[in-house]
């Protein structure tokens, strides 16, 4: 006969450690009035290119900084550093996503109170980042016109956790016969009502809309932040 067993109720989130750190980060961002934006996509969808352009355009008006996650290299950080804003690389090694603790360490020594926007480029991956809260105020999911209009249907979870979708490389839409209505339908199926912008970091198309959106969101965010 088997020895007797008892069932003990637990109720603990598996990622509670990450969530605790993420909540603390979110509070720090709020207290410092810095609007934190994370970017997630497949590798090569254009996160770094979009950031390069965004940082250069924002630099004159705002204090901006960026953290960049990558498995092994600091190539992206070097590209972004050309925008002459503070940039730090987070090398994740074998880990295929950023975790809140990595963001926390990446921020060490930075005075958040001096920042207006913090951009966080996640590791190129549409699966793993979905489960990890980074304390960001806005999660942006990107996919390029070359990836297929049904990308959101293949990765519904990451789209569902995002607040905004960007369809990137719109300058290539004609060449790849991109079906824009189909792409918008896919996004709406997995995340009804989510805002979507079509952008090109190359031609600059849609950049005004995206930057304007960020400014508006940051203003709204600050109305709820404590006065400093």
């Amino acid at each position, binding site marked *: 006969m088997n020895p007797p067993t008892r069932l*003990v109720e637990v109720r603990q989130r*598996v990622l509670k450690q990450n969530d605790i750190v993420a909540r603390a980060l979110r509070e720090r961002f709020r207290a410092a009035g810095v609007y934190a934006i994370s970017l997630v996509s497949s590798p090569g969808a254009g996160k770094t290119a979009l950031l390069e352009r965004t940082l250069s355009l924002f630099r004159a008006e705002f204090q901006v900084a960026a953290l960049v996650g990558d498995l092994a290299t600091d190539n992206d950080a070097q590209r972004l550093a050309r925008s002459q804003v503070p940039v730090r690389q987070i090398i994740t090694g074998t880990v295929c996503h950023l975790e809140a603790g990595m963001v926390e360490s990446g921020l060490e020594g930075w005075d958040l109170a001096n920042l207006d926007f913090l951009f966080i480029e996640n590791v190129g991956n549409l699966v793993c980042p*979905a*489960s990890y809260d980074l304390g960001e105020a806005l999660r942006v999911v990107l996919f390029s016109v070359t990836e297929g209009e049904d990308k959101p249907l293949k990765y519904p979870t990451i789209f*569902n956790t995002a607040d905004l979708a960007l369809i990137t490389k719109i300058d290539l839409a004609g060449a790849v016969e991109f079906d824009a209505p189909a792409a918008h339908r896919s996004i*709406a*199926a997995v995340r009804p*009502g989510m805002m979507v912008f079509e952008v090109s970091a190359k031609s600059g198309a849609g950049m005004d809309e995206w930057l304007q959106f960020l400014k508006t969101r940051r203003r709204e965010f600050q109305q709820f932040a404590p006065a400093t």
Partner: protein
Amino acid sequence: MHELSIALNVLDVAAEEAERQGGRVIAIHLRMGPLSGVVKEALLSAYELAREISPLADADLVIEDVPLVAHCASCDTPCTLESPQELRCPVCGTGTSRVISGRELEVVALEIES
């Protein structure tokens, strides 16, 4: 593939509780939703690797699927959805992005030999 780190997290959470309780853990009960970002089969096989190097090597992982439920604003009622690929009320067809359950990834119970 982040299921290995998820599996290690499951074991950490369970080990912490087991310490408080005492006794040999023979099963960890997990609740998981279709929007948890974790693939059940991948987690189960990652868990087999992870338990080997853990103090809870005797504990089986038992996963309970949590249904995807969203609130339909038109019907003003919760509705159970078939798939995360189509967040649409099955009754009236309205898109529903207010997810009530389906994001869960939590350890709910331990079976302990006493």
